């Protein structure tokens, strides 16, 4: 997940943390390579209101020279490896992102079950009847640690 490189100008090490969705997940997903797996996604049904709502701000970007869509729920880029038909760049980027989120593959979603302090839907607002997580959060306890006197 993290690589190291010398800055060349300083003795301090600079470490760049990857923001690639498949690096965070540890694997590549089939819908990154096969457009047929996202073609049927209904963007209007997946978003609130009468248009595509928040997806208006989602466009096809590029990361490491590869077409990619940004997943704001995990602060990572989801690369797209299939050829995107001209004129459909943003539409396909949005469909790949929605498939990624509704399948629960966004890294931010996988963290919810462990770290949520407040009840919330695990898969976000895109999935009806998503499980609720965060209902039983307990303060983590560091084994062997005792509070200093006076605390």
């Amino acid at each position, binding site marked *: 997940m993290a690589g190291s490189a010398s800055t060349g100008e300083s003795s*301090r090490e*600079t*470490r*760049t*943390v990857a*923001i690639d969705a498949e690096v965070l997940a540890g694997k590549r997903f089939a819908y990154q390579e096969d457009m047929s797996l996202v073609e049927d996604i209904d963007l209007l049904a997946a*978003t*609130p*209101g*009468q*248009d595509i*709502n*928040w*997806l*208006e*701000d989602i466009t096809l970007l590029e*990361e490491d020279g590869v077409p990619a869509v940004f997943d*704001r729920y995990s*602060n990572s880029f989801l690369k797209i490896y299939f050829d995107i038909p001209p004129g459909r760049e943003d539409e396909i980027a949005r469909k790949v992102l929605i498939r990624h989120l509704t399948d629960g593959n966004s890294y931010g979603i996988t963290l919810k079950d462990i770290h949520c*302090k*407040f*009840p*919330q*839907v695990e898969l*976000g*607002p895109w999935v*009806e009847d*998503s499980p*609720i997580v965060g209902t039983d*959060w*307990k*303060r983590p306890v560091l084994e062997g640690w005792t509070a200093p006197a006076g605390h």
Partner: protein
Amino acid sequence: MPGSGSRSGVSYDARGLVEPHAEMPDNIEVDGHRGRFDAADLTIRQINMALRQLIYNDGITDVTVLNPSSKHSLAVGILKRCRIHFEGSPGWFACGLIDGPEVTINGRVGWSVAENMMSGVVTIERGAGSLTGAAIRGGDLIVKGDAGARTGIDQKGGTIIVTGDVGINTGFMMQRGRQIICGNAGMNLGDSMYDGSIYVAGKVRSLGVDCVPGEWDDADTELIERKFRIHGLGDPPEFQKFVCGKQLHNYDALEPSERKLVIH
């Protein structure tokens, strides 16, 4: 949710949050997928507990809250598709941090309505205070009246529509998204904005640093007509578009690095 500690007679839960009156209200009416309750005599905590219980646990998709009575921080952090109606006026920070709800407010709101909204639709039938839509990231926020200073400050996405006037420093440090202002704009419109578009139909008192008139194209017409149509706002007036002049920030140096987390 029982308290797990007590200091000075006040109960705290395991997260360290104070929980006064943490009992669920007993005046909730449920009819199928609809819920309704009167918030006049409830605490903020109770109102938000009731909303979460209905929406998250009881499968209610349409909730009406009567008499919000200008209480602050109502319907904050609701992360599910649903409909919420406020019959009356909430106070500050209403509907902050939401992701998915479609909210109608049959009244006015105080500061920072829909702050940090991720997605959804918030429609306010009357005016809104300062910081309307501060830092919103997505969704539509419609104010059918005037909005105060710093409307859409630090906006990172989404669309803010104000049918009346907006105050000073509207669009300050805007980074993305769209503002559609049907009335006049106060001083320093779009000051230090980084990206995004601001459409103004009325007069602009003054432009902020690096905010300049933009070139109108077909996408602007499509956006304006679509938003007016789906929100029932009638025929749109003539707008002038304003964008970032891109002279203030060092784009060539910033663009690649802002997307990476670099630890020194």
